[in-house]
């Protein structure tokens, strides 16, 4: 974790949100600061191994097809580490993975369109590029998981209104908050521990994106307060329907 002494105080004396609300110069300065904050976009570490592990447990005839999501081994001390974690995903997991894949496709396409729109430059553009690249990695990961379980969902064709910087930023915040809620809604329904672990690893990235975009659009980074609210598949699909061609 990088230490940036000094910059903390700079940011604190003038509120992030207040700065955004100010004139264009301040805004640009803030965005420049924000740009420095973006990580180098580390590659997905260990995902290949995760996928390989999933592949080995793929089964067309769901061996973990019962509603007992957690096998008895989960709580026993010996052998639980391996056996329960590699328990095959059920067809329910494939549906969840494909649902997540569809959302990630849309996010990925959205960011690509935003990048090419020319509405953003400099630091904010680099934030958007980083987020977009992370969504791309989510797509790649989920597609491989889906392939290990069955047939991946087809790539949808997104259609997004791209009008102005503020409208796009607001839409991005909406999309990311929805994405975080979507993962949260599915987590308790996932049967495979490995797929659950992957979903959790993605869930908090959507949350980080959402909080960032909320701050950039002058919204509360924790809009639900101390406890984030989940969204059901039906709620999310209804919300994204207008963005699918």
């Amino acid at each position, binding site marked *: *974790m990088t230490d*940036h*002494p000094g*910059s*903390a*105080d700079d*940011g*604190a*004396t*003038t*509120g992030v949100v*207040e700065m955004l609300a100010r004139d264009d110069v301040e805004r640009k300065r803030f965005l420049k*600061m924000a740009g420095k*904050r*973006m*990580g180098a976009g*580390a590659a*997905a*570490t*260990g995902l290949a191994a*995760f996928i390989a592990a999933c592949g080995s447990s793929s089964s067309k005839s769901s061996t973990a097809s019962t509603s007992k999501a*957690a096998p008895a081994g*989960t*709580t*026993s*001390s010996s052998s639980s*580490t391996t056996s*329960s*974690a590699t328990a095959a995903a059920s067809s329910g997991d494939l549906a969840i993975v494909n649902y997540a894949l569809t959302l990630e496709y849309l996010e990925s396409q959205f960011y690509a369109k935003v990048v090419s729109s020319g509405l953003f430059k400099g630091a904010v553009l680099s*934030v958007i590029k*980083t987020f977009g690249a992370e969504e791309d*990695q989510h797509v790649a*990961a989920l597609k491989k998981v889906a392939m290990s379980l069955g047939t991946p969902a087809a790539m949808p064709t997104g259609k997004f209104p791209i009008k102005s910087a503020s409208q796009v930023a607001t839409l991005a915040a909406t999309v990311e908050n929805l994405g975080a809620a979507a993962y*949260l809604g599915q987590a*308790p*329904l996932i049967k495979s*521990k*490995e797929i*659950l*672990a992957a979903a*959790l*690893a*993605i*869930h*908090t*990235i959507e*949350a*980080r*994106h*959402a*909080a*960032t975009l909320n*701050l950039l659009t002058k919204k509360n*980074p*924790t809009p639900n*307060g*101390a*406890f*984030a609210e*989940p969204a059901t598949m039906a709620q999310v699909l209804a919300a994204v329907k207008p963005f699918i061609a």
Partner: protein
Amino acid sequence: MMTDTDLSNPELAEVEVHGMNRASFLLKGALATGAVYGASAVAPFVSSALAASSDIDILNFALTLEYLETNFYQVKGASVHLSGEAKTLAKSFGDEEAEHVAALTGAIKKSGGKPVKMPQFAFPVTNQAGFLKLAYTLENVGVGAYNGAGPSFTNKALLAAAGSIVQVEARHAASIAMLTGGKITPNGAFDKPLTTKQVLAAAGPLIKS
């Protein structure tokens, strides 16, 4: 990526605290569990350190972390005299961590367990910059801790509750990154789960009893 070997460091010795209350006992227990299971992680995303723990143990482990965060924001935040946006965020985040403490305490009782008591903490920061730096670390540790423990829950309702909390920890971490120049997504596209050993390496030295 941290490995268990990386964490076999002297800092862990500080976990061997004196006045052995329930919290430190649990932390030590978790440390032992991590030693058994940490090395045989089945997959990079699965932190198996808590695989043999009960839901109540996981909740108590989380409760200890939430006590730490709450105390940090509310007590340390006041003593370093925060200002501006940092003050606003610390107040808001401290309130939210306190709600996590209350929720976890309630969940432990409801599950038939006994909530750990709040340990004594010591935070080695003296100014706002240091405070924000440690806040960023603690929030990221929180994200990794919950993500690492998540797959080990047997009760799905508790998993849902933990998910609801970890999303907020991630939002806190990103907000602090925005404020300080830290990385918004320090792990790239996939947040890394932490084992109990890794959590202890970061949080253990801050727990005094």
